[in-house]
């Protein structure tokens, strides 16, 4: 069995729309090749409308017209169930859902049926893949909830009766109760307060460790990636521009965009003027030629405007797509904090 659980190859997935004669093709995912290892947390970062959400929709096999895969493959190597979700039938996908592949959707309030008790929702999702029913199922769920520090009482509650943090833990519970091999988590902590956010993140991390699952973790917040991900991939304008081990990404980025993202993080104890990246991400309907980052890139040269940089391996598990990666300077040094922790 190969070490990669997911292999994405040359994936292109577009929104193809027609509004009263206005033809639009939004290239939300444009030629992404990457892979994810077993027992790995892979963070995907990018600005809003960079295509990161579209990308994980494909990973989760949640495409709906007008969004469709145009080219490439998305191959999972589940135990006994190898599958390419880009081409698989609904029935085949049905067979791996929740048992092998689960999904934590953005917005804990809206993903739970507001008129159904949490316990019922667990039954709906997990009873069949687990092959359990009645008390055995209930015991299993209660046991799992206990791991998430949730009391069995939540099973009788309705979503609106729970706090945001609890709801988020419930959705994590829901996604992990069947011990899937692969979990896709889309901004699971975005709306949470800092204290709760930290708790939830640590929970996800712990559960992942315990189950040995692979997790794709999507957020625009680099500081979350810093603490959760083993590897981080940066998506810009529908393309993967750099991926690498977390520490390297923060302290030795090989793409100017990554360097900027890291640099723009303010830190307590540091009041030095921080640069802001001007401009806006390009429209996915009409991206610029060449390197898509070139209009905002301080290092851009003429070549960047015409030729698309290829993905180059620049270190162990570290790849980047930049003509001038060698000139990228880390903007932040890994030094100790000024603050004194009490």
């Amino acid at each position, binding site marked *: 069995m190969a070490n990669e659980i997911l292999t994405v190859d040359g994936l292109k997935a577009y929104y193809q729309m027609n509004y009263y004669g206005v033809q639009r093709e939004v290239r939300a995912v444009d030629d992404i090749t990457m892979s994810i290892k077993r027992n790995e947390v892979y963070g995907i970062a990018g600005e809003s409308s960079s295509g990161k959400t579209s990308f994980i929709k494909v990973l989760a096999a949640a495409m709906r017209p007008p969004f469709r895969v145009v080219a490439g493959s998305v191959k999972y190597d589940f135990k006994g169930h190898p599958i390419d979700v880009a081409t698989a039938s609904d029935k085949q996908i049905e067979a791996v*859902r929740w048992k092998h592949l689960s999904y934590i*959707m953005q*917005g804990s309030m*809206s993903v739970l*049926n507001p*008129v159904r008790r949490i316990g019922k929702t667990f039954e*709906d999702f997990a009873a*069949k893949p687990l092959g359990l029913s009645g008390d055995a199922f209930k015991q299993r769920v209660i046991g799992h909830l206990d791991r998430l520090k949730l009391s069995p009482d939540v099973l009788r509650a309705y979503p*609106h009766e729970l706090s945001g943090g609890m709801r988020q833990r419930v959705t994590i519970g829901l996604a992990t109760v069947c011990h899937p091999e692969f979990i896709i988590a889309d901004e699971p902590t975005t709306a949470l307060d800092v204290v709760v956010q930290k708790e939830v993140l640590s929970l996800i991390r712990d559960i992942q460790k315990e189950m040995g699952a692979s997790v794709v973790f999507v957020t625009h917040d680099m500081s979350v990636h810093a603490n959760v991900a083993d590897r981080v991939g940066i998506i810009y304008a529908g393309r993967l521009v750099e991926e690498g081990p977390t520490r390297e990404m923060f302290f030795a980025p090989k793409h100017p965009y990554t360097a900027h993202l890291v640099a723009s993080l303010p830190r307590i104890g540091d009041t030095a003027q921080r640069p802001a990246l001007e401009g806006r991400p390009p429209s996915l309907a009409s991206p610029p030629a060449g390197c898509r980052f070139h209009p905002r890139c301080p290092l851009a040269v003429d070549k960047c405007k015409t030729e698309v940089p290829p993905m180059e391996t620049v270190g162990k598990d570290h790849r980047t797509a930049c003509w001038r990666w060698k000139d990228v300077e880390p903007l932040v040094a890994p030094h100790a904090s000024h603050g004194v922790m009490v």
Partner: protein
Amino acid sequence: MHSYLWFVGKRILQLLAVIFCGVSATFLVTHLSPIDPVEQVLGRLSARSNLSPEAIASTRAALTELYGTGQPIVTQYFNFWMRLLRGDLGPSLLAFPTPSMELVARALPWTLGLLTTSTLITFIIGNLFGALAGYNPDNRFFQAFGIVAIAVQPIPYYVVAFILLVIFGFLWPVLPISGGFAMDVRPGLTLTYIGSILQHSILPALSLVLVGFGGWFLGMRALVSNIVNDDYVTYAELGGVSRRTIVDAYVIRNAMVPQLTALAMALGGVFSGTVITEQVFNYPGIGSLLIDGVNYGDYSLVLAVSTVSITAVALAIFIVDLLHPLLDPRVRTE
């Protein structure tokens, strides 16, 4: 529980206010009527018999005293509320001296029965089909069904009732077309009697169902086609939840919340359909009573029917509202 009590309390207050306002408006509107009930009765009396002028004068005096129409309107209004609280709206002119309330009480069960059954059937079938059509937007059967629903919806009650009358009374006379039950049936709690009532209610109810159905169907279809795009439905689909459960517990259950509100709001409207239906099928309900009352200038009766129908509709809305927290847990802890 506390909040549910508060919810009920608020609804009761609202119910009382609605009844008070509606009934007062009814009183005002009717008492501004130029129709003099005394002259109405005299007119009917003498239309077919040979009365002398003296006789007419003395009868008029007697009737004026009896109906209390000589008093100022404020006194009449006050007396009206006093009487209403005792459940007595005075004698009907149309069926003097029977209390108008008695006439209403006799007619009301028929209308209520007809409305309750037809509304329930309409609501359930319309919503079920609407939900399935909304969840399967590409299904040809439901698409065709939608077109039929849109086409039937604007046909006036009268025409639908009448077509049913012609089909099932004339071309293929298999169903009774008039009355509440058959002449050779003994009223009572017997199967024959209830069977006869049901048999006689098929056509009137069917006419209401046919017309009312489309609205629920279309409303539900629109609601469902929105709900299927909601995150929790998408998520359930991604979670491999069975289709049946999704339609049932995710889609329909959530769509029922606004549909229930719509039901409460629609209750006042179905009344107009029963009036026509009762006329066409000679059904002894409250709608034809109202029409008779209007044509006879019987304002006691018109008041009684309006008062009772306003109260009944308000009560029905109240009951539907009480069901709300059962359907929507969010209301319970509001």
